[in-house]
């Protein structure tokens, strides 16, 4: 009796693991399909670029405040922590390099992507989910207008264009924050701060690699947000769950992709 109960329990567990795996795989496939369709329909949305510009405003420009403020504080903290450690070895002039490299290589792209997922990604998911729930996407379909061309593609390109710009801005403001703490407040030599940075930051290795990262994060975050919105069940609960999933999946995807990209970039 106990044995058969155990067997049933085991079978049920296996079944539920199987079901979840199939469900995840199905969603991955549906996401990939949406991505392909978005690329295919991009031509139409490029022809009417004003749609993309409008989305750049609502995803990119509206994210400026949170990005700039966060960058400023991150830069200041980096300088504080960096100085604390570097001065033990008597190399506190290297603080400019430390701040710049940390921001350009890692923190700029990664933190911007995380903030973007929270600020713009959730907005995209909720908007598209609600458009679906209120039959706006259906209405578009019935008017012989593809929602992928009209709604999804402009938002996708807006995200992909905004992300690297935001990340660069993050690094710039971060460096400024680091400068304010290091030079006027702590009293590190200004010339050493900038000249060491200039000598040790490489355009291709550091800046361009950072930009490449943020473009990849832009594709991932925006696509995840769009897919979750498009795939959300048309109910209040469905949209709220989809919004949560956007943040969780985007954050994990950004951190995972960051590791993969960094290992490739360092290996080359």
């Amino acid at each position: 009796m106990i044995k058969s109960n155990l067997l049933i329990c085991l079978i049920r567990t296996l079944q539920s693991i199987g079901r979840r795996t199939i469900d995840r795989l199905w969603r991955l496939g549906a996401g990939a399909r949406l991505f392909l369709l978005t690329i295919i329909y991009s031509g139409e949305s490029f022809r009417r670029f004003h749609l993309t510009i409008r989305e750049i405003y609502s995803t990119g420009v509206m994210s400026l405040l949170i990005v700039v403020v966060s960058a400023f504080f991150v830069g200041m903290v980096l300088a504080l922590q960096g100085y604390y450690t570097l001065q033990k070895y008597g190399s506190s002039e290297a603080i400019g390099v430390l701040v710049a490299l940390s921001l350009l290589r890692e923190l700029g792209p990664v933190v911007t992507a995380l903030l973007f997922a929270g600020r713009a990604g959730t907005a995209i998911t909720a908007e598209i989910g609600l458009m679906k729930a209120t039959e706006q996407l259906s209405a578009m379909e019935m008017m012989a207008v593809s929602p992928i061309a009209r709604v999804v593609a402009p938002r996708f390109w807006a995200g992909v264009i905004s992300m690297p710009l935001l990340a660069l801005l993050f690094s710039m403001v971060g460096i400024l924050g680091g400068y304010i703490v290091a030079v006027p407040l702590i009293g590190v030599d200004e010339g050493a701060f900038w000249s060491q940075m200039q000598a040790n930051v490489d355009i291709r290795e550091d800046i361009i690699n950072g930009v490449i990262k943020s473009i990849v994060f832009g594709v991932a975050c925006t696509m995840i947000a769009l897919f979750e919105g498009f795939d959300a069940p048309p109910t209040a609960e469905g949209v709220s769950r989809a919004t949560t999933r956007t943040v969780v999946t985007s954050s994990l995807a950004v951190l995972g992709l960051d590791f993969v990209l960094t290992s490739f970039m360092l290996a080359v």
Partner: protein
Amino acid sequence: MTTNIVEIDNLSFGYKGKLLHKGINMVFPRGKVVAIMGGSGSGKTTLLRLIGGQIKPSEGEVRVDGKVVHEQDRHGIYKLRRKMGMLFQHGALFTDLSVFENVAFPIREHTDLPESMIKDLVLMKLNAVGLRGAHALMPAELSGGMARRVALARAVALDPDIIMYDEPFAGLDPISMGVICDLIRSLNDALGATSIIVTHDVEETFSFADYVYFVANGEVAAEGTPQDLLQSELPFVHQFVHAEKDGPVPFHYAAADYRSELSL
């Protein structure tokens, strides 16, 4: 040119193993206002989606203007849909666009008309539904009845051959209801279009429809002109037309025995 602009032939549709429609036959002659009636959940709205090609039938076919809808590729379906206008149950207005831009949407998407002509067309459509003065408002500022009328102006923006209405009277006050009734008839006749109305409001529909189909249990339970149906002795039609609580359509959803469920 076929006499019937839409023909539904032996159509079956089901999902998740449940059959919603079982062998439905309907015709929609050009120029007529035809209503599809039936209880909630009888698959009326699904019929509109099948006509619009948003879903595919399990069996049988829907022909629009002589073309089988589910055999069309994406391009073909979009071409057919340009002949259709659809009014959704809650209007489905684009909340980020103004009333004017909502009505201009299909015109901008499908034509290259100059801005001045788009403006005239939109104002004419809005005037037809009595809301020219509301063109600058946003959808959130409209009442339910006004939103429905703007959606109607949008549905007829490109002068469609077929206008489909999904529950056009749901949740409206009596005045708005009367307005929508008049608009359905007058737009149909002015545009020379064919209207397909999905609804469960007997009184309003019978006042202006040319022909009515009753759908129950996935089949066409009765059909005829409103006069025929009012006199019908069929138990289902009688129950529906006279709004009786119990009859062939039971009050209770199928359940286990009441006494045993309460452990009596």
